């Protein structure tokens, strides 16, 4: 009973009940968008937050994951589900290939290298006819069976996304409490010191990138299956990568629930901006992201989670004194 009433038990209950309480498709859609942003940012968080390797090119994995289900459907008429593991495997392979040269670089150089690779892939997909070039690919318009994952209601998507988020959070929690998690945090703080203690730095970073790529790819697949459409910009565009970074950094990079907190704030804000300004506010997302970057960098580089950790004890101290 105590566990259910803990903040995280209440959060889980809230997430499970949300689409039942808010049955309007608009709110359910916001809920699904929140979960997808939380999955993407939590996946990025493994390598960007815990290991401190700030990739700004994670859209390369998101895009691969998004293209594969629709490519399997377009080429062979297979269920988009079949494309999900293919996307994950390809993303892991890409992570290993990309990780080898880029992990020789540190800090901003690593970030810039990841942007360059993601942009190269975006341009390549934009000219490759097999994947629809600049036009992109479409999924099944009407479902042939449930395994096409083409639903009229937002509800099944919401719960599929929630299940994936649950798995990802469990994996991240397990990592946090194992040797691997300790190594990631040590690498983030000081690679040189970590190596001197016998931490296999390159190998650990590669593992983190591969795991992060796998979940980011899954997020991409979920996005494409729900939207039923993918093109180079919505799959590999830099905004996709930036959103993952911002969501995680806003909530608290390197914390289990930081990305959730970030998504909880940013996604409704984005939706509100889009609703208020409609098509005329298409550039507003950039302004919003820019504003969030400035605020985090200036006032709270550790994100809202760290702010809460810093302020909460003080409040408790005051309450106890009273």
């Amino acid at each position: 009973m105590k566990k259910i009433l803990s903040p995280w038990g209440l959060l889980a209950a809230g997430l499970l009940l949300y689409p039942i309480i808010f049955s309007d498709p608009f709110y359910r859609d916001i809920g699904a968008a929140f979960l997808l942003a939380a999955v993407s940012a939590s996946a990025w968080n493994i390598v960007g937050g815990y290991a401190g390797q700030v990739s700004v090119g994670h859209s390369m994995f998101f895009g691969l994951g998004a293209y594969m289900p629709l490519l399997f459907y377009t080429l062979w008429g297979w269920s988009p589900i079949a494309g999900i593991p293919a996307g994950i495997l390809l993303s892991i392979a890409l992570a290993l290939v990309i990780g080898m040269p880029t992990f020789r670089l540190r800090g901003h150089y690593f970030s810039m290298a990841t942007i360059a690779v993601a942009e190269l892939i975006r341009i390549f997909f934009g000219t490759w006819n097999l994947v629809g070039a600049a036009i992109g690919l479409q999924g099944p318009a009407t479902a042939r069976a449930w395994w096409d994952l083409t639903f009229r209601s937002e509800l099944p998507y919401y719960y599929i996304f929630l299940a994936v988020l649950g798995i990802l959070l469990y994996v991240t929690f397990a990592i946090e409490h194992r040797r691997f998690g300790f190594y990631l945090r040590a690498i983030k703080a000081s690679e040189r010191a970590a190596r001197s203690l016998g931490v296999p730095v390159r190998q650990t970073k590669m593992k983190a990138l591969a795991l992060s790529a796998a979940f980011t790819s899954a997020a991409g697949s979920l996005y494409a299956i729900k939207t039923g459409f993918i093109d180079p910009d919505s799959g590999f565009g830099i905004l996709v990568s930036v959103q993952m970074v911002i969501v995680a950094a806003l909530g608290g990079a390197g914390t289990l629930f930081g990305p959730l907190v970030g998504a909880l704030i940013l996604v409704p804000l984005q939706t509100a901006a889009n609703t208020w300004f409609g098509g005329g506010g298409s550039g507003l997302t950039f302004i919003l992201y820019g504003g969030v970057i400035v605020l985090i960098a200036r006032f709270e580089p550790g994100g809202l989670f760290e702010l809460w950790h810093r302020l909460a004890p003080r409040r408790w101290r005051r309450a106890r004194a009273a």
Partner: protein
Amino acid sequence: MLLEAKNVSKAFGSFEAVSGADLAVDEGEIIGLIGPNGAGKSTFFNCLAGDTLPTTGRIVFNGADVTRASPEAHARAGIGRTFQVPATFDDMTVIDNVMVGAFLRHLHRNDARDHARRIVDLTGLRPDQPARSLGTPGRKRLEIARVLATDPRLLLLDESLAGLTPTELRDAIALVRRIHEMGVTIVIVEHIMEVIMTLTKRVLVFNQGRVIASGTFEAVVKDEAVIEAYLGRGARRPPPYPPPQAGEGSSIFPPPHAGEG
């Protein structure tokens, strides 16, 4: 012999930071590396720790050639090191910092935690204290605790006792003694002569990348080359070195006027 470095040189472009240095360390020894700033001690130290690749020479540890081995391989082989500027993992607690070291030989979390707790108790730190909140002495202790958790056979201490108050220094010297009594061989780079004099049986003096003298502390301070390296050419030979009181000055030699008149 536990460690043998033979003819180790390290050049950065045309500048030779270390030139043909030799060092032999027996199991159970405490050896001091001293020398003026820029003498090449730290570069040589980094070569021993696997952090810097020597240009020439050979380093053998426990019968295995580790000259070109990575820092990780050095740690696995049993060579641990601290850093001149403490590199603690600031977002982690003391016990978590030490667990990173403990994981090298204890794969399971509970084993690593138990081992780390024993080491933390030895160093007198509070296990749940955030590393970020520690001052310089605490951070230096934490670094020592963290490397001890890797169960090293050879411990390389890079100015780990610098910047401490006299009381902290006494405690730190006692800690190094305890570590030595646990059977760990120690090589220590230090500017504080009290530390070198109190802890070491043998000292190597570096100057301009070369080992210019080696022997007991009392012997090397009388060496003409050492006097010249510290005080300059033409300096008078100082009188026999009086051991300072704990916490007193850090100069190798007393002021030139001491003992005169």
